């Protein structure tokens, strides 16, 4: 009867735990919403999981209690019946409560373990992402009430948890342990959440975020442990009569809730998993005995490790002792000894390395590997810079604003890509003069570029003034960096890409094309001129030669005619009429040989003869295409 009473008492404790953790879970969730704490959100999740575990263990306690009641009744009946065969039936029919408990342990408990795993793993995954995206933090004006409430939750949970943990050590109260462990862990997490809120109140705004991240990792570890437990449960050796450990009774949660029971928990886990008492081996006992010494050694090693600093090649380090730079405390590459943390601290800087940043553009990953860079094709995320323009100013001053195109400001736009390379030469100046020296150097360089371009002409800076611009910019950036005591040396400033914006770049290329076309036209005309002059020379030569030939012909023919005439005179004198008639007919026959001749042999003088002497052109000649020919 005492056993039964204790069993009922355990179930009552389980129910109290369940009610307490549910109420505190709801309250914690409300407070979290009120104060907008990330850590409080994770704490609520832990408390919710604790409520589920407390419910499962309470339910199982109820089943075991029913089973014991059933056993007592059956024992009483068995005493009264003295073994009549009439009531001999199967166990399932006689012990329904036991059957229910067995079915619960067989199916529900593993299923619940899987459910917990999914909730824990899913919760850790989702909360990690949600924390990273969270933009708002703890409301400072609500921090104090929330802090106090979480402290109260921690205290209440601690009291319930400690009581239940103590009760769980009693025989037949083992089912109290899973819920009690979660309640104790919940108490500590509520306390940590209160610390996170206090941290925010004490001007550490990221405290809530970092503690939330830590609790998220813890939730992930609990999920991992649950997964391992489920896997090991499959291969665990079954010992008849040995009480099985509940799958949802997390050892990690138990250890965190009761850190003093580290060795007990570890021993129990090992004994349970291997089926024999690992905790009684010499190694385990040695470890258990010397743990404080090991921890001390580890702490000492950790502290000693902060006494040595290694500076890599290309780096320099600034050594600070209690925040003050040590005289000559710039450490060069190699190993160095220093006082342990927190007395000495070291800050490393890449001094030898040539560092680069870009002004005017941000490399575009999609076009970075292009082999050809064209003005008219965007090859990076480029900024447009304003640049002066002589021609536009002239137009604006000379004319009124009647023309629409003149309403545009008297400036042009230009795209530049300027890589700037620098090296830190004074690490103390770099470290202590400016909070963000890299960003400041970029600001100074960009300002120098904006200033330079604002005072030059577009066309000149794109052509002949480019080299001069590089030198001027390098000098100006160096001067600005020196004025701001940045401790850097500007090694290189390159105008590697300077061109009109992509939208008008094509028009600039057309101008180059037009210039080439102009040259081509001039060259064509020169070729034509050469041809014309050459042909004219040839024609002149021909004309004079023909004239020479004509002169020669005239002279020779005149002489020949004179000689012929001299010889013809005697013949004419001998027979003037015959000679004349003969000459006439010879000439007539020769001259009219090819002429078309019509001879009218008519006697009637009044007859009218009509001749159509019009030339008839052959039809095929009319269709002939004659190519154009140019006269020289």
């Amino acid at each position, binding site marked *: 009867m005492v056993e039964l009473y204790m069993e009922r008492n355990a179930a009552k404790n389980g129910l109290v735990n369940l009610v307490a953790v549910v109420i505190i879970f709801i309250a914690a969730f409300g407070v979290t919403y009120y104060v907008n704490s990330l850590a409080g959100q994770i704490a609520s999740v832990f408390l919710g999981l604790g409520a589920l575990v407390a419910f499962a263990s309470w339910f199982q306690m109820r089943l075991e209690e029913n089973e014991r009641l059933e056993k007592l009744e059956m024992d009483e009946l068995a005493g009264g019946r003295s073994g009549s065969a009439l009531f001999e039936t199967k166990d399932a029919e006689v012990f329904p409560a036991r059957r229910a408990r067995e079915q619960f342990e067989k199916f529900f408990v593993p299923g619940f373990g899987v459910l917990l795993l999914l909730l824990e793993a899913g919760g850790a995954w989702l909360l990690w992402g949600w924390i990273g995206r969270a933009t708002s933090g703890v409301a400072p004006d609500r921090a104090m009430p929330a802090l106090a409430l979480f402290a109260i939750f921690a205290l209440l949970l601690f009291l319930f948890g400690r009581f239940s943990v103590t009760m769980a050590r009693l025989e037949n109260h083992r089912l109290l342990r899973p819920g009690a462990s979660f309640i104790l862990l919940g108490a500590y997490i509520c306390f940590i959440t209160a610390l996170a809120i206090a941290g925010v109140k004490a001007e550490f705004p990221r405290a809530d975020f970092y503690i939330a991240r830590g609790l998220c990792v813890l939730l992930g570890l609990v999920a991992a442990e649950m997964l391992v437990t489920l896997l090991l449960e499959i291969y665990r050796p079954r010992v008849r009569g040995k009480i099985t450990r509940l799958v949802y009774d997390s050892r990690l949660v138990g250890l965190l809730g009761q850190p003093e029971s580290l060795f007990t928990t570890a021993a129990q886990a090992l004994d349970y998993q291997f089926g024999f008492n690992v905790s009684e081996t010499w190694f385990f006992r040695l470890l258990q005995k010397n743990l404080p010494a090991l921890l001390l050694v580890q702490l000492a090693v950790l502290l000693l490790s902060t006494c040595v600093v290694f500076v890599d090649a290309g780096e320099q380090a600034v050594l600070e002792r209690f925040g003050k730079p040590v005289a000559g405390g710039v450490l060069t590459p190699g190993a160095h000894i220093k006082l342990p943390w927190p007395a000495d601290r070291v800050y490393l800087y890449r001094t030898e390395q040539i560092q680069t940043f870009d002004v005017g553009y941000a490399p575009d990953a999609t076009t970075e590997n292009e082999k050809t860079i064209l003005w008219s094709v965007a090859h990076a995320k480029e900024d447009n810079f304003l640049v002066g323009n002589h021609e536009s100013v002239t137009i604006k001053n000379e004319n009124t604003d009647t023309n629409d*195109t003149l309403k545009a*400001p008297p400036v042009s736009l230009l795209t530049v890509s300027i890589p700037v390379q620098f090296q830190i030469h004074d690490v103390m100046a770099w470290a202590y003069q400016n909070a963000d020296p890299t960003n*400041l150097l970029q600001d100074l360089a960009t300002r120098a570029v904006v200033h330079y371009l604002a005072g030059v002409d577009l066309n000149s800076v794109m052509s002949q003034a480019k080299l001069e611009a590089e030198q001027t910019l390098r000098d100006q950036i160096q001067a600005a960096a020196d004025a701001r005591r940045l401790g850097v040396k500007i090694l290189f400033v390159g105008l590697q890409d300077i061109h009109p914006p992509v939208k008008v770049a094509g028009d600039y290329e057309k101008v180059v094309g037009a210039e080439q076309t102009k040259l081509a036209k001039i060259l064509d005309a020169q070729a034509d001129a050469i041809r014309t002059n050459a042909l004219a020379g040839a024609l002149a030569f021909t004309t004079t030669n023909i004239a020479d030939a004509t002169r020669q012909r005239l002279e020779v023919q005149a002489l020949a005619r004179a000689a012929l005439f001299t010889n013809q005179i005697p013949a004419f004198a001998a027979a003037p009429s015959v000679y004349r008639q003969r000459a006439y007919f010879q000439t007539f026959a020769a001259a009219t040989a090819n002429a078309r001749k019509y001879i*009218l042999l008519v006697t009637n003088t009044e007859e009218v003869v009509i001749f159509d002497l019009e030339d008839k052109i052959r039809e095929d000649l009319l269709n002939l295409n004659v190519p154009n020919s140019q006269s020289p």
Partner: protein
Amino acid sequence: MKRNILTVIIGAVLILIFGLLLFVFQVRQSEVAVVTTFGKPVRDLTEPGAYFKWPWPVQKVYKFDQRTQNFEDKFSENLTSDSITLLTSVYVGWKISDAQSFFPKFAGGSMSAAQRMLESTLRSAKSAVISKHTLSELVNADPKALQFDGIESEIEQAVQVQLQTNNCGIELEFLGFKKIGLPESVTQAVFARMTSDRQRLINQFQYEGEAEAQKIKSAAERQASEVVNNAVADATRIRGEGEAEAAKVLPVFQQNPELANFLLRIDALQQSLNQRSTLIFDERTPPFDLFTGIPASSTSQGH
């Protein structure tokens, strides 16, 4: 016993570390600190080193970065005095000059709150200064007309005056234009003007080329014509000389002018009939007069 000693040592070390953290704090070279006792500023620490304090909540330490902070304001639109909308962004370097004045002005010495205040002051000053200047004073190819540095100085002075008025423990170290741009619609107008400018050059090159070509051709033709004309003149002269030389034999023909004239006529007849010609004769023209002595029937058959 041994175990107890170890536990005591560990505990002592932990308590020592915890105590150090509670009672001692460090101020870095790059920092300045303000110590408050129950919320009231009592100490202003500008030198680096380790300092003692009473633990929270008696004393609290607020540390600030005393190095020059820099930030860039928003790329905002302003109107110049010549009514051109201009986008500008300014970077600013500032530092805490007086931590005790700075600390109470910005909710526990919040650097971000100070930066927000500075940014609003900056935007106001920038807008006021830019509205007094024309765009060509900020961007101009003529260095004499450019007032870039002067405008920066004006903005810096305006901000500095406001900071002194506020007495918020902040000092402006430097200021400069980070970006100067035009709104999208104006940018498109500038693009259109740049395109027109290029088109003007394209036309200039195109027609200059044509004009130049025409000039070259014309000069060449003139030169060719000159050469040909000279050649024709020379040819005429040469032919004349030939004529003159040929005329020297004319006295020979004077020996028998009748025969000479007859021969000249015959030559002329022969030369005139050299071309394609149609001749119509009647029966009286020798030698066709031979047809008159032929009987009529024979004549008809001849046709």
